[in-house]
């Protein structure tokens, strides 16, 4: 992490902006859902912004990430544009996945996002494989695998940790422990200790306050550097919190967590509020400047929504395109029609 405050104002403000951008995206997405303008449902990243931003600001465009069902934040933090993200969310042709992926598979592939994943824990192998490529091809990029506390229950992660450790791969497993998997508190489904699980494979493990974007960024920057020097893999457990329900329709959730708990996190540990206050107290930005950023991004998001709502759906002929690379239309191809 950069040391010199004034020289780093720009970096700080970029982090602030990115967090605000994620929140604006999610607020609009939620609204689209409530207005029945979004197909299907979605999982809000609101509350966890410091994790995605703190980590992705430590990465270059060359670096790779894998993301989750709660992936809008990762996607934006890694460099995606609001407009093309809203297009994807609405199933429009201009979306990052041409409308074929939607919320759970959203990814700005050009910025190194290897995909959100609707299989909990399903990307642990993909991230580790990307790290294997880096090592084999002599490329210097790092891969970050984002996943939730609930995903630590999946055996796949243990299998790939073993290989990552044996082969010293440049991969960082970043567990966003937001205290819940769906409607279940983490301690009901996690025995023992998450950091000990990584350490048992000889993987260095860290715990970080996931609401403190600078702490996250510092840890990620150091570990990414060490990965590049061949000291990987690493594990980070980031304590964080999701403000909304598990998904947009998860409204009555008193049976698994209290309104008081939610209120406390929002009041005391909001990553954007707290970072904003710090920026002011350190003299990096005045209150008005931050308000200006907020409103600029608000406008940007509103315009992006408008754009996406008006954008066209993919044409019907696209339905059997992109099944196979190098094959225009899959259906005739699969019946043996020569290409």
């Amino acid at each position, binding site marked *: 992490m950069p040391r010199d405050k004034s020289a780093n104002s720009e970096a700080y403000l970029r982090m602030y902006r990115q967090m605000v951008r994620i929140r604006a995206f999610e607020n609009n997405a939620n609204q689209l859902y409530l207005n029945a303008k979004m*197909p299907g449902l979605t999982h809000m990243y609101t509350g966890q912004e410091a994790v995605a931003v703190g980590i992705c600001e430590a990465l270059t465009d060359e670096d790779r990430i894998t993301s989750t069902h709660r992936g809008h934040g990762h996607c934006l933090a890694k460099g995606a544009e609001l407009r093309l993200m809203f297009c994807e969310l609405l*199933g429009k042709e201009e979306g990052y996945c041409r*409308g*074929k992926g*939607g919320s759970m*598979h959203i990814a700005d592939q050009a910025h190194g996002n290897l995909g959100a994943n609707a299989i909990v824990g399903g990307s642990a192998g993909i991230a580790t494989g990307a790290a294997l490529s880096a090592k084999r091809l002599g490329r210097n990029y790092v891969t970050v695998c984002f996943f939730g506390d609930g995903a630590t229950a999946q055996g796949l992660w243990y299998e790939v940790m073993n290989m990552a450790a044996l082969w010293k791969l440049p991969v960082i497993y970043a567990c966003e422990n937001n205290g819940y998997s769906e409607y279940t508190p983490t301690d009901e*489904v996690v025995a023992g200790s998450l950091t000990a699980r990584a350490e048992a494979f000889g993987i260095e493990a860290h715990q970080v306050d996931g609401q403190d974007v600078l702490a996250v960024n510092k840890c990620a920057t150091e570990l990414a550097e060490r990965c590049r020097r061949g000291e990987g893999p690493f594990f980070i457990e980031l304590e964080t919190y999701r403000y909304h329900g598990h998904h947009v329709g998860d409204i009555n959730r008193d*049976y698994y967590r209290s309104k008081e708990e939610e209120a406390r996190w929002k009041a005391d540990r909001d990553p954007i509020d707290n970072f904003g206050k710090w920026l002011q107290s350190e003299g990096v930005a005045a209150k008005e400047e931050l308000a200006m950023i907020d409103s600029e991004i608000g406008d940007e998001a509103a315009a992006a929504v408008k754009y996406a709502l008006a954008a066209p759906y993919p044409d019907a002929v696209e339905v*059997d395109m992109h099944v196979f690379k190098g094959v225009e239309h899959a*259906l005739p191809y699969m019946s043996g029609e020569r290409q």
Partner: protein
Amino acid sequence: MTRGITLSQAVNEAIAEEMRRDETVILIGEDVAEAGTPFKVLSGLVEEFGTDRVIDTPIAEPGFMGIAVGAAMTGLRPIVDLMFGDFLYLVMDQLCNQAAKTHYMSGGKLSVPLVLRTNLGATRRSAAQHSQSLHALVAHIPGLKVAMPSSAYEAKGLLKAAIRDDNPVVIFEDKLMYQDKAPVPEEEYLLPLGEAAILREGSEVTLIGTSSMRQVCERAAEILDGDGIGAEVIDPRTLVPLDEGTILGSVRKTSRAIVVDEGHQNFGITAEIAARISEKAFYHLDAPVIRMGAMDVPVPFSPALEDLTVPTPEGVAANARALVRGVPVHAP
């Protein structure tokens, strides 16, 4: 006495009745207890039966599937809840290498009485990893029984039969039908595995539809009625065992058949049913058996595309019309 209840209620009733009847029946899966699953199908069961019998697991499908197999081998009758049919891939080893083969490999000494409840069905805008209909995979594996309820009535009767069955049974519910109501008897009843239902009689074409495609076939039959074409509608109800007799009997009468299913068409279950008809009712057929499965593409998210991938009543009716009128039909 019947009353209209939803498919979700039917499943809930079946489980509650069987859990009352037999103490060894347990429920196991992710968020099955207080949450009653994301689809709320199991709401209320934990209140009646407690967390000893309604067991929330971590997100570890291979793990809790394996645990269910071991529990079934040693005196429990687990009902495993697999939240989405797409997660079947994760439990295939425990289901197909272990549960399906244990009775045979042990020469009949061990058995695995368990039910795997999961779902199928697209058009929910859930994209490629939450919309698959993967019943063909398990229907292929000897040692598994496979049921496909097509309404609340079948859902309850087949599930109760499955819970009492001494073998592993996989049940696919259509997740889009959970709120659909159908008449269900007040009294207890079971539907034996392996008996197809003739839902509507007709003499010119047989429409065979599994799960929600039964409803598609019924609507197609109504459309065809308007054209003066009499369609017979059959719901196989179970794929393993498959009530070949009822299907063949109908086709031998109508001489024409369309098989409709929401799994991918290629190497899917329409192939098996069509192949059996084509072979065993060969001399009765006036026209080729037409297959209509889901399109052979990963399920796309965009509504503009997703809706193209699933058979529709209009499509079924159009194919039936062509068959009956002798127009050559070569693709669905």
